[in-house]
């Protein structure tokens, strides 16, 4: 029972025009990054601005690698290490706690879960100044501990895993494990964790992207000699903003890995984000 006017509305070509336009605007800056990053310095300041990629990427990226002030490779390595460690930890601690909240009975579990949800509302930047001095006291200034340890757990991760676990895992399954004499941890490891895999994958992807892209805290606590990738990019652009070819080549290299991950897993990432939105 769909009226004629509704049919007219939903097949309107204008819908597609608007969506294609939005898609182009969303994608254009990526393309622009490639155009500038692959062109020689002389050719980017043309009028009208260039719209096609050039062949100078190797040359531009070579300048990035030769640039001692940017420490690009160190930044890349640091970002890979920090993002990987944080991702693995957030998924493990999140699924463990999520499992406990969803499937185990213990005193105070409701209040503790509520406490975790409340912390999701607190802007972390508010603790920036004392955190900076705490890191000094711990001797962690300018070390990877400072940008890793505080992020090993995530309230969002616990909450998301709890939501998924309470739907995806039946109580009978856990009961069966108990009857077989498995310990709670054994049940988590052999039954729950495999069942949580789809949600754990999405959480892992989101966590990796967020850690890879994080800026303020690494910028505050790391020096240009030992940066993460984003910090390295920022210093590169402060010092060499006239050499846009070099800066854009570096920015593209720092962005492409995430774009590739997104192209492969985009459907799951988007599904996870939309699912989380409806439930919360």
């Amino acid at each position: 029972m769909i009226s004629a006017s509704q049919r007219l509305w939903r097949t309107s070509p204008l819908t597609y025009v608007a969506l294609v336009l939005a898609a182009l605007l969303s994608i254009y800056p990526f393309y622009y990054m490639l155009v500038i990053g692959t062109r020689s310095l002389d050719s980017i300041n043309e009028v009208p601005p260039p719209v096609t990629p050039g062949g100078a990427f190797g040359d531009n990226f070579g300048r990035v690698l030769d640039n001692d002030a940017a420490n690009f490779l160190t930044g890349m390595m640091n970002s890979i290490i920090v993002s990987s460690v944080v991702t693995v930890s957030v998924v493990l601690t999140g699924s463990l706690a999520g499992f406990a909240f969803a499937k185990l009975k213990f005193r105070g579990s409701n209040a503790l879960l509520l406490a975790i949800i409340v912390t999701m509302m607190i802007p972390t930047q508010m603790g920036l100044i004392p955190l900076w001095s705490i890191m000094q006291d711990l001797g962690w200034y300018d070390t990877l501990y400072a940008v890793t340890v505080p992020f090993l757990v995530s309230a969002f991760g616990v909450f998301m895993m709890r939501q998924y676990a309470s739907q995806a895992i039946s109580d009978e399954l856990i009961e069966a494990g108990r009857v077989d004499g498995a310990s709670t941890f054994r049940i988590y490891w052999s039954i729950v964790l495999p069942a949580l895999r789809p949600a754990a994958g999405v959480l892992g992807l989101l966590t990796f992207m967020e850690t890879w892209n994080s800026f303020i805290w690494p910028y505050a606590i790391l020096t240009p000699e030992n940066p993460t990738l984003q910090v390295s990019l920022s210093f590169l652009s402060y010092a060499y903003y006239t050499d846009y070819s070099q800066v854009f080549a570096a920015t593209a290299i720092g962005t492409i890995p995430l774009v590739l991950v997104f192209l492969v897993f985009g459907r799951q990432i988007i599904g996870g984000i939309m699912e989380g939105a409806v439930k919360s």
Partner: protein
Amino acid sequence: MSLSATTAPPSPAAPPSPDVDRRRSRGRLLNRLDVKYSPYLYIAPFFLIFGAFGLYPMVRTAWMSLHDWDMIGEHSFIGFDNYTRLFSDEYFWNALVNTFGIFALSTIPQLLLALFLANLLNRTFLRAKTFFRMAIFMPNVVSVAAVAIVFGMLFQREFGLFNWLLSLVGVDPVDWDGQRWSSWFAISSMVNWRWTGYNTLILLAGMQAIPKDLYEAAAIDGASPWRQFWQITLPMLKPTFIFVVILSTIGGMQLFTEPLLFANGNILGGSQREFQTLAMYMYEMGIVNLNSAGYGAAVAWAIFMIIILVSLFNFLLVRRSAK
């Protein structure tokens, strides 16, 4: 069977020895302890790490804000002096105005556009759904730093794309980071670009949770799609919309990276502080100038209060307007 055959099989006839008995009861005890207390072990990592690096710093920010606090030297208790100082600090007010200006320029168009796009994506027979969703979400995959760098060039005075486009319609080149309104516009455009797609998806998720038979009933009654949008979609979308507004508020009040990189790392945000945000001012007072950490902490708590107030205001506004 094959395993137990290699070791000595226990004789089925033999009564359980006291040793086995003790082991069994210890097993039962362990089992009881495991069921009763191990959950606390599983949630402990979150509370330990969050407590040490999330909650404790927040509390310490409050404590510091009551002191004249030098990071590397002395500190003395001064009560609420840091907070009263905020009211007469012109740089604080300047940062407040900048933050709200950029917030308005980014949040309002962004949410309207997201609402529009979500409504388009919610069409039942739309083709290439996944493609459009992925395309408009793509900007959120890029780091803020990369966005700020790329837009920095787009807004460049001499050879930037925006000034070239303006020249096509006969407008003189704009010195984007030289004036207040133009720098606000440039920074807002970065925020809009990065977050519109994300908000679109959240709103779309909210729309898809609305029962379809409501629309069918309305269509039978002859309600136009436009009317359906106003009378069904918008009111039913209220909780999701409030969620999105509050998220945008938290993000907008803490805006830092875009203006910092737009100013090439200058924490003042332009020569006349044209686009220094509250978060930048907090950073300037608390991290760059180590001797005013107490005042920086007061700025941090002020931001927190502002977030709560603005969120509450938005919450009431959205709730009332959507009835």
